């Protein structure tokens, strides 16, 4: 095992804040469009939270340049690496695309884009019925794709944590799990025992 380097602290903080925000956002979104009585309350949270996610995604992308993520474990086969890389590219793309499409969609409907109180965003698309219809549909499709990608990401993370028992999950976690991973004792030792082979 070549590396036990975790993600930098700032990257981990960003990751978990965004994880909570995006998961909340997906639930707010799906609940909002089907509900009647809590529609307005949820919509009032949906717009500023969406813009917050967009801003955090931009910060995260910049942060990634200065704080590159640790490499994937050596033993991972090519197809798993490709899937991991591909799904991360997709997650990043959707973290930008879903809020941007939402913003453009409100612009195309000529809605006032109120974030909070007097804080408003300018339109980023022309007022156009057909454009609105396309963007409205796109917003839903991309949000559902983000939900599916999130589920795959979660399942993969748990597979690394529970079955592969490598450094992937500890590298993004806080506290004991990471310390154990960084020390090279916990997960490796257990995985090593399971594989009935010497690690070091």
């Amino acid at each position, binding site marked *: 095992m070549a590396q036990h380097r975790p993600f930098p602290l700032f990257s981990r903080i960003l990751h978990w804040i965004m994880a909570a925000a995006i998961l909340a956002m997906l639930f707010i979104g799906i*609940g909002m*469009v*089907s509900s*009647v009585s809590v529609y*307005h309350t949820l919509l009032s949270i949906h717009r500023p939270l969406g813009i917050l996610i967009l801003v955090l995604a931009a910060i995260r992308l910049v942060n990634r340049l200065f704080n590159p993520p640790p490499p994937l474990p050596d033993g991972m086969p090519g197809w798993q690496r490709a899937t991991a890389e591909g799904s991360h590219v997709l997650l990043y793309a959707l973290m930008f695309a879903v809020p941007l499409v939402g913003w453009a969609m409100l612009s195309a409907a000529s809605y006032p884009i109120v974030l909070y109180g007097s804080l408003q965003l300018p339109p980023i698309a022309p007022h156009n019925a057909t454009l609105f219809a396309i963007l409205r549909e796109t917003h839903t499709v991309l949000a559902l794709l983000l939900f599916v990608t999130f589920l795959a990401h979660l399942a993969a993370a748990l597979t690394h944590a529970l079955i*592969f028992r490598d450094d992937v999950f500890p590298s993004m976690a806080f506290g004991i799990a990471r310390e154990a991973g960084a020390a090279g004792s916990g997960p490796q030792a257990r995985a090593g025992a399971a*594989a009935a082979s010497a690690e070091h």
Partner: protein
Amino acid sequence: MPQDSPESQRYRLASLTDKRALSKLGIIGLVVLIIVMCFAYAGGWLWADRLSQAKVIDGFELANGGVHSGFRRNHAKGVCVTGSFESNGAGARLSRATVLSPGSFAVAGRISLAGGHPGAADEPTDVRAMGLRILPPTGEEWRTAMIDLPVFVVRDPESFYEQLLATKLDPATGKPDPAKVAAFSNAHPEFAAAMKVVKSNPFSSGFANANYNSLIAFRFVNAAGVVTPVRWSMVATDPFAPEAADQAKGPDKNYLFDDLIARLARGPVQWHLVVTIAKPGDATDDATIRWPADREHVDVGTLTLDRAETEAPGNCRDINFDPLALPAGIESSDDPLLSLRSAGYSESFTRREGEKKTPSAVQVPVTGKGP
């Protein structure tokens, strides 16, 4: 690193099928399933009885006898209007909204009749409506949609939906089924009481001399953060005249709209925006109840409409007059109808904007002043 090294062995798919891994895969699958089920619950897929946006608008489509492509599911027949709102500043002590500070602001609106048939003939007892966007140059737009009834006839989303289906026109008679209406009315005394008030107030002879009411309460918040529950009305300056018995008998199916277009051609039409201030104890969550007549009224400005325009791409046709598109200083009240309207309008807007458009029955002549 060679493929059979210890490091790569743990990533083999075969390692997923040993007994210990299978139970862990089961746990992972369960976690994913629980999240998916929660998501489905939030989306209303596990809860068929819930009154959803789609169900409300499906109800309108049913009541309308089908989908009229490209039109609003309610207030389908209408015409665009433009003008200005001159705020006198008297509202500034109640609300910090820019639209209520002294000044003149552009207005884009829509005059319409309640009902989902875009080609229906105008009728004396059609509910007249006014949707407005008041547009300060700084943004902070205010949208409001008002009707000329003195009270609303239902007070919550569920009874709104029941009433929609109970008063659906029977295709055979062209009228609602009296038995269904009676059953609904008996189950909802507030509806019966509100209908009595509605029937005791005559309809105006046209759009220009009708008063348009918010009916639902809102909250004004001033610069000091003081909240005042209010309702508002656009009170016509054209003298009120009741709808004459023979007005609808002429050949013009659009006589109410054509009268408005002709009236605008003669000159601007004005209304006073009058804010009614609630006293403690006045219902802010029940639009079927009128506030006592002695409540303080504040005239906060004058609306002037000077031009009518046929519905067309990019004008009022493609605007959702969402009553909860509010500037800072005007807020939703606890009336549950507000979120229902906002949600229903949004669903109607989403459906119609993607549909093929048909020209409006109301056509404004392109020559001459104004219209």
